[in-house]
C-alpha cells in the first residue's frame, strides 16, 4: 500500500488559514498547497466534532453512522439520563477497520469516539478521553508504556481535560486567554511527539492524527484572527494575544512539515477539518423561548429540600436542564446539538404531544421557530430541519426532532435565563458549515481549487490513495480532479463490495483464534483416537 497520512485540523477554515499563509505564519502549509489541491469541505447539518469526524471516518452521514452529539440523553423518571457517545455507538465500519481487514496497518491518534478502542491492525490512541482513563483506552496497551518513555511525556497534558473544557464552554475569561493558548501549544506538542515516535517505531500504511487546537483557538480568539475584525489600533494586550495565536499556528505548521517529511516522498498527505468557523454575535436561549410559548415548564426548585436545591443548582451550572416533564412538550437537552426534542406522550395524562398529533405539532413548531425575530423584526433562525431532512438514514433515532440553523450559526443556549436573544459582549468564534480539505503528494493534482466536497468524500479518497477499493455503500466518492489523470490511468478507482460490520476486524481476529482453538482440539482428539 502507498503510505497515506491524514491530518485532522479541528475547526480549520480558509478564512483564517489563508491570511496566516499570506502573512508567513504557515509557510509549509502554503508550500504544500502550491503543489497540491484545496477545496471547501461541507460539514454535517449540525457542524459538530463527533458527528462530523465520524462522517469522515466512516464515509457515511450521521443518519447512517448514528452519532449526533457528544452526549445523548433519555428521559427517565423525573430527570434526564445523560451518557456519552462512544465507539460502540457508531453503527458503521470505520476506515480503520476497512484498512485493517485488508491487511493494511493503521495508526490513529486523537480522533473522537475511539474509546473503548477498536482492535485494529496497528494502534489507536483515542481523543476525548481523560488522562485518568487514557492508558486503558489505548490499543494495544503497550503503546501507552512506549509513550511514557518519551522525554517530557505527560498524559495529563495530552489527554482531554474535562474540567477545563467545561469552563471553556462558558467562555474563556480574558485573563485566562494567555494560559489557554499556551496550554494548547503544549498539548499539541504532546500529540506531535507521540505521532513522530509512532511513525518511526510502528510505521503504518494509514497514519491519522487529529490536532484539535485550531477549534480551541478560534472559539476564543476569532476576533484576533479574522481580518475583518482585527483591531486597527490594538492594545498591547490584544497584540500579545494575537502574537500567541500566531505562535500556535506557526508551531502547528512546523508539525505539518515534519509529519510530511517523516512520511517520506512517496506519501500522500491529506488534511481536513470537521467544520469551519466564523463569528457569532448573539445567543438564542431556546428553552426560554419554548417556556414563553407554553411548550416547556422549568422544574420549580422552591419546594425542594435545601440539599436537593443545592445539587440541582450545581447541575444547572453544568448546563443541565431541569424540567417539569408533565408540562413539557418540546425542549433542547444540550447546547451542542442545536436541536429540539419533542416529547411524545407515553400514557394518558402525560403532558407530552399525543403520538397522533406529532407531525402537525412538529410542523407548527418549525413554523413558529422561523418566526423568532430580533428587535428590528429580522428573523434569527435561517433554517429548521426535520430529523428526516437533516439526518436521513436508518440510524437517526437519537437525532433531534428539529435541527436549528441560526443566522450566525451560533450554538443554542439551553439555560433558564432572559432575554431570549442575548447580544454577546464580544464577538466569538463558532462552528460554520464549510471546513477545509487539502492534499498533496505523488498523483495529487497540483495547485488547483476543487469545487466544494463533503466530509463523506474523504474516506474514499484515503482508500484510493492506499490502493484499496471503495466500498459500494459509502456515501461519498473519489472526487474528480483530486488525482491526476496519469495517476488514475495507472490506478483507476475500484468499487468494492459493501462495508463490513462495525467491529468486523475485531470479530475476524476472534474468529481466527476460535478457528485455531478448534484446530487444536481436533488435533488432540485425533491424537486420542476419537477422530480421524
Amino acid at each position, binding site marked *: 500500500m502507498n503510505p497515506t497520512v491524514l491530518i485532522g485540523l479541528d475547526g480549520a477554515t480558509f478564512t483564517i488559514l489563508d491570511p496566516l499563509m499570506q502573512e508567513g505564519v504557515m509557510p509549509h502549509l502554503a508550500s504544500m498547497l502550491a503543489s497540491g489541491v484545496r477545496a471547501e469541505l461541507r460539514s454535517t447539518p449540525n457542524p459538530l466534532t463527533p458527528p462530523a469526524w465520524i462522517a469522515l471516518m466512516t464515509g457515511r452521514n450521521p443518519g447512517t453512522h448514528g452519532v449526533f452529539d457528544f452526549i445523548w440523553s433519555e428521559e*427517565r*423518571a423525573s*430527570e434526564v*439520563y445523560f451518557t*456519552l457517545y*462512544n465507539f460502540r455507538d457508531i453503527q458503521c465500519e470505520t476506515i480503520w477497520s476497512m484498512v485493517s481487514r485488508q491487511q493494511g496497518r493503521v495508526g490513529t491518534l486523537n480522533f473522537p469516539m475511539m474509546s473503548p478502542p477498536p482492535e485494529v491492525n496497528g494502534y489507536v490512541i483515542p481523543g476525548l478521553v*481523560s488522562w485518568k482513563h487514557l*492508558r486503558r483506552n489505548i490499543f494495544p496497551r503497550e503503546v501507552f508504556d512506549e509513550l511514557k518513555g518519551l522525554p517530557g511525556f505527560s498524559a495529563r497534558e495530552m489527554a482531554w481535560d474535562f474540567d477545563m473544557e467545561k469552563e471553556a464552554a462558558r467562555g474563556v475569561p480574558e485573563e485566562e486567554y494567555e494560559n489557554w493558548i499556551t496550554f494548547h501549544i503544549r498539548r499539541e506538542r504532546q500529540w506531535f511527539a507521540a505521532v513522530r515516535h509512532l511513525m518511526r517505531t510502528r510505521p503504518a500504511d494509514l497514519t491519522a492524527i487529529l490536532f484539535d487546537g485550531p477549534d480551541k483557538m478560534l472559539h476564543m480568539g476569532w476576533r484576533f484572527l479574522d481580518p475583518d475584525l482585527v483591531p486597527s489600533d490594538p492594545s498591547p494586550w490584544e497584540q500579545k494575544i494575537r502574537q500567541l495565536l500566531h505562535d500556535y499556528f506557526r508551531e502547528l505548521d512546523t508539525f505539518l512539515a515534519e509529519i510530511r517529511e517523516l512520511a517520506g516522498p512517496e506519501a500522500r498527505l491529506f488534511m481536513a477539518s470537521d467544520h469551519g468557523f466564523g463569528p457569532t454575535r448573539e445567543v438564542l436561549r431556546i428553552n426560554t423561548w419554548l417556556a414563553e410559548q407554553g411548550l416547556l415548564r422549568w422544574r420549580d426548585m422552591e419546594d425542594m429540600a435545601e440539599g436537593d436545591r443545592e445539587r440541582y443548582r450545581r447541575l444547572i451550572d453544568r448546563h443541565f436542564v431541569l424540567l417539569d416533564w408533565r408540562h413539557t412538550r418540546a425542549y433542547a437537552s444540550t447546547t451542542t446539538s442545536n436541536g429540539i426534542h419533542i416529547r411524545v406522550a407515553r400514557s394518558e395524562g402525560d403532558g407530552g404531544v399525543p403520538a397522533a398529533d406529532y407531525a402537525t405539532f412538529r410542523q407548527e413548531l418549525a413554523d413558529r421557530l422561523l418566526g423568532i425575530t430580533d428587535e428590528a423584526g429580522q428573523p434569527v433562525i435561517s433554517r429548521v430541519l426535520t430529523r428526516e431532512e437533516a439526518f436521513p438514514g436508518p440510524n437517526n433515532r437519537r437525532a433531534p426532532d428539529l435541527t436549528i440553523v441560526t443566522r450566525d450559526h451560533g450554538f443554542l443556549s439551553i439555560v433558564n435565563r432572559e432575554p431570549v436573544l442575548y447580544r454577546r459582549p464580544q464577538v466569538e468564534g463558532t462552528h460554520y458549515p464549510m471546513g477545509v480539505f487539502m492534499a498533496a503528494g505523488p498523483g495529487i493534482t497540483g495547485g488547483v481549487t476543487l469545487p466544494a466536497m463533503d466530509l463523506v468524500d474523504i474516506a474514499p479518497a484515503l482508500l484510493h490513495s492506499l490502493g484499496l477499493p471503495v466500498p459500494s455503500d459509502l456515501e461519498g466518492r473519489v472526487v474528480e480532479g483530486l488525482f491526476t489523470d496519469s495517476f488514475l490511468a495507472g490506478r483507476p478507482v475500484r468499487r468494492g463490495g459493501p462495508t463490513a460490520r462495525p467491529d468486523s476486524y475485531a470479530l475476524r481476529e476472534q474468529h481466527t483464534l476460535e478457528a485455531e482453538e478448534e484446530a487444536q482440539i481436533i488435533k488432540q482428539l485425533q491424537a486420542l483416537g476419537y477422530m480421524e
Partner: protein
Amino acid sequence: MASRSREEILDSLVRILEDMTADWDMDLDDPIDEATRLMADLEFESIDVVQFIVAIEERFQQRGMPFEELLMEDGRYVDEITVRDTVDFLDRHLAG
C-alpha cells in the same frame, strides 16, 4: 453463558477498579472491596462513572443494562455508589 456468582462479579469489579485507578496516584487506606465508595474513597467524578459503566459492559459483554437504576433513586441522581451497590445491580441484571 453461565450465571455468575456474587463473588465472581465482585472479583471482576475489583479488578476493573484496580486497573482503572492504577495511575491515579491515590493512597488508599484499604484495598478495594464491597464497602468501597466510588465517590468518597476513589474520588470518582461523573466522567469516571461513565468509564466504569463502559468497562463493566465490556467485561461482561452485555450492553443495554438499565444503569439508571444504579445511578438514580426516585428519579434523582444518587450522591454515592458503593461497590456493593454495583454488585447487587449486576447480580440482578447480568444475563444468566
